[in-house]
């Protein structure tokens, strides 16, 4: 019988490789960012389950549509400006 030192190491995959995987195709609804209503609070970023809101130097950028699954959490949590949401959900492919 093999000792544990001879056993092959189990499934080791490259750290963070899921980044290459496209989950954007799951979307039924697509979030759209309306920049003029954005107050840069970054709630959308902290609440996104899929790390699909890009932020650079502390400022929100575009959606990462390769990973966004269209759950709509960001749109619900977005306070927007003067009652006007900075994120709206629209049916995909329309």
């Amino acid at each position: 019988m093999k000792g544990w030192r001879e056993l092959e190491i189990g499934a080791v995959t490259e750290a963070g490789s899921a980044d290459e995987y496209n989950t954007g195709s799951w979307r039924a609804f697509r979030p759209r960012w309306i920049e003029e209503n954005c107050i840069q609070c970054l709630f959308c970023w902290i609440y996104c389950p899929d790390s699909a809101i890009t932020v650079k130097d502390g400022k929100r950028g575009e959606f990462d549509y390769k990973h966004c699954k269209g759950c709509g959490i960001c749109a619900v949590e977005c306070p927007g400006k003067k009652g006007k949401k900075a994120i709206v959900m629209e049916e995909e492919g329309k």
Partner: protein
Amino acid sequence: MSTTPLRLKELSKKEDLLTGGHRLCAGCGAPIAIRQIMLAADVPIVAANATGCLEVSTTIYPYSAWKIPWIHTAFENAAATISGVEAMYRALKRKGKISEEIKFIAFGGDGGTYDIGFQSLSGAMERGHDIVYVCYDNGAYMNTGIQRSSATPFGANTTTSPAGSVIPGKLQPRKNLTKIMAAHGIPYVAQTTPAHWRDLMTKVRKALEVKGPAFINILASCNRGWRTPTDRAIEDSKLAVETCFWPLYEYENGRLTINYKPKEKKPVVEFLKTQGRFKHLFSPENEHLLQHSQELVDREWEALLREEAMWKAEEEKEEQKD
């Protein structure tokens, strides 16, 4: 070691250690909590992850969403696995083979924590390992199709507590695991939700900082099992706290602090009514079950308030003595 201020602008400059492209359902609460945990930590983390949705869906071969050393462990022994890793780390440190400060976290679902992994969790806590155990509680065995666990709330419809003509959903109340962990006398125990990101991150930092075992219980919405639209994870977590179904509190060396007291405690139906798993409770013949749900919440909340008041009275007595 510098610590990143708990401001979203500053935190957003850090690298996300859980990538997108994982295959948890759209709108799942678990990855929101995990991202926040990893962002809160300013030290390298090694994690063990019990079988469950989080583990399965973040590491579908040949992909992994984790950018940290991460071990898949069996359903029942995440706490034992991380204990072993931490013990090895201490041994290597003693021998001078490693000098870096590393912290160790185990992640488990409620099935893997309240039920099947409870023995290994209790043992690890009692042995005093310098680890943090995080339970993401979505209130059922979700990955295998919504079976009831001891974390499932009273009255919830699951595939093994099906609401119908025989039973009206789960007949038993939830087990209060956070209190049970506090009874282990470990240095840090807390309860939080990802909707309360600053509270969650503060608690993660405290848990990582204390010497010895820490336990954090995080409510993590599951839209498949809770029968909610995919955009509800944060709103339902807020309702859980506003109704005192899931109060935010912590035990620091045994001392209880309630971190948030709603100005007006909402009736628990506010939390229940948005979720399909409780829909049957709203039919007229089940009104007494809704009442019972409220009683269960009130009983635990009032016990917490009394306990905190007792601590305050003790401290006042001590101060008067000085």
